């Protein structure tokens, strides 16, 4: 396998987002779009407005992350007493009741992973904006990690939906979804879209400018 050691953009080429066909980037005027000759997807050398879109989505998700953690996720009523649990109090409950593995899974998926995603995406955005040329491979690897891991945060939402469907024993025991559930689900969905809208090629573009 040989590389020409030039990027598609330097060669005046464009790689289709969807089918990866490499074609010549046609000259287009403003408000015109170039379409992939093979699959019809709109061609862009870089994802459009990648940085600003990713910032907007990350900030939105961070705002939703607060009520997701502060408000109760589940409301359990058993024999007349009700108890509201946030994500963190659920984790603590599992720790005290001997299933620390489950506590670890929920803590990682619901609290740690979304938080790390914010940190990593903000770090990537800032290094791209400041045209950093440091450790581009490692940064690309971080991006790949955030993209792959983010969806697993959804697990807590599924646990809640299973519990409320299953625990319907009237006065004996009843579990309802708390207001945090919808905020938390939004955090997961929005961070997934944020990771998708970030273009990792921007990490490498700063290197090109250095060579020129």
């Amino acid at each position: 396998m040989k590389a020409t050691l030039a990027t598609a953009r330097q060669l005046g080429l464009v790689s289709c987002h969807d089918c990866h066909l490499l074609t010549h980037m046609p000259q287009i005027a403003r408000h015109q779009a170039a379409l992939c000759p093979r699959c019809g997807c709109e061609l862009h050398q870089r994802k459009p407005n990648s940085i600003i879109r990713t910032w907007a989505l990350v900030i939105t998700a961070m705002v939703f992350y607060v009520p997701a953690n502060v408000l109760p996720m589940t409301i359990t009523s058993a024999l007349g007493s009700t108890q509201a649990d946030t994500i963190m109090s659920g984790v603590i409950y599992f720790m005290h009741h001997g299933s620390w593995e489950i506590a670890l899974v929920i803590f990682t998926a619901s609290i740690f992973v979304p938080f790390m995603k914010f940190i990593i995406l903000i770090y990537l955005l800032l290094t791209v904006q400041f045209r950093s040329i440091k450790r581009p491979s490692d940064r690309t690897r971080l991006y790949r990690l955030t993209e792959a891991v983010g969806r697993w945060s959804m697990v807590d939402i599924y646990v809640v939906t299973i519990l409320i469907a299953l625990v319907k024993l009237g006065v004996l025991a009843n579990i309802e979804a708390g207001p945090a559930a919808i905020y938390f689900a939004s955090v997961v969905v929005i961070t997934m879209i944020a990771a998708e809208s970030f273009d990792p090629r921007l990490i490498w573009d700063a290197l090109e400018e250095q060579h020129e």
Partner: protein
Amino acid sequence: MHQIACHECDLVHNIPPMPERAAARCIRCGCILFRSKPDSVNRTIAWTTAGLILYSVAVTYPFLAMKSGSIVQQTGLLSGIQQLYQQDLIPLATLVLLTCVLVPLLQMLGLLYIIIPLKLNIRAKFAIPVFRIFQHFKPWSMMEIYMLGILIALVKLGKMATIVPGLAVIAFGLLIFVLNFAISAVDTHMVWERLGDES
């Protein structure tokens, strides 16, 4: 010999004809450019068909039953979602419906819709948009995460009542692997080349 640009760092590579089961990696960022997959069409059809059979069991049968005294409460994937709708949790119900029921189903049906015509050398209508949508669906198919949710719910409720795992749990567990095999059997590069040739 053909040219391909790395979709993570945009470096252009010349790729010679590849041996079977080989992967081409970007020399700059290490991302996998593509993998050549042997017998991709037949494998994809086989795994996807198996997936559809398991799916029908996983969706319709109850996956957990909870016994507390004389009361038995069962829940399945669809009945669980129905419960959510009845409790006015429409956004949550829709999210579960999309990520665990509709997207995996459309993924499998879409795959068969693309691959079977390739096997028979005929042209399916709208094959190109269907395959594009299929590729975008991938991260939103979350059955394996739902399975982890079932396991956590099992442990959580195990202390309150007797929990009996149902037939759907087994089907679910198998389906996760089968769906994964089906999707990784697809030779995306080959499919695009063939869809491109025909149009």
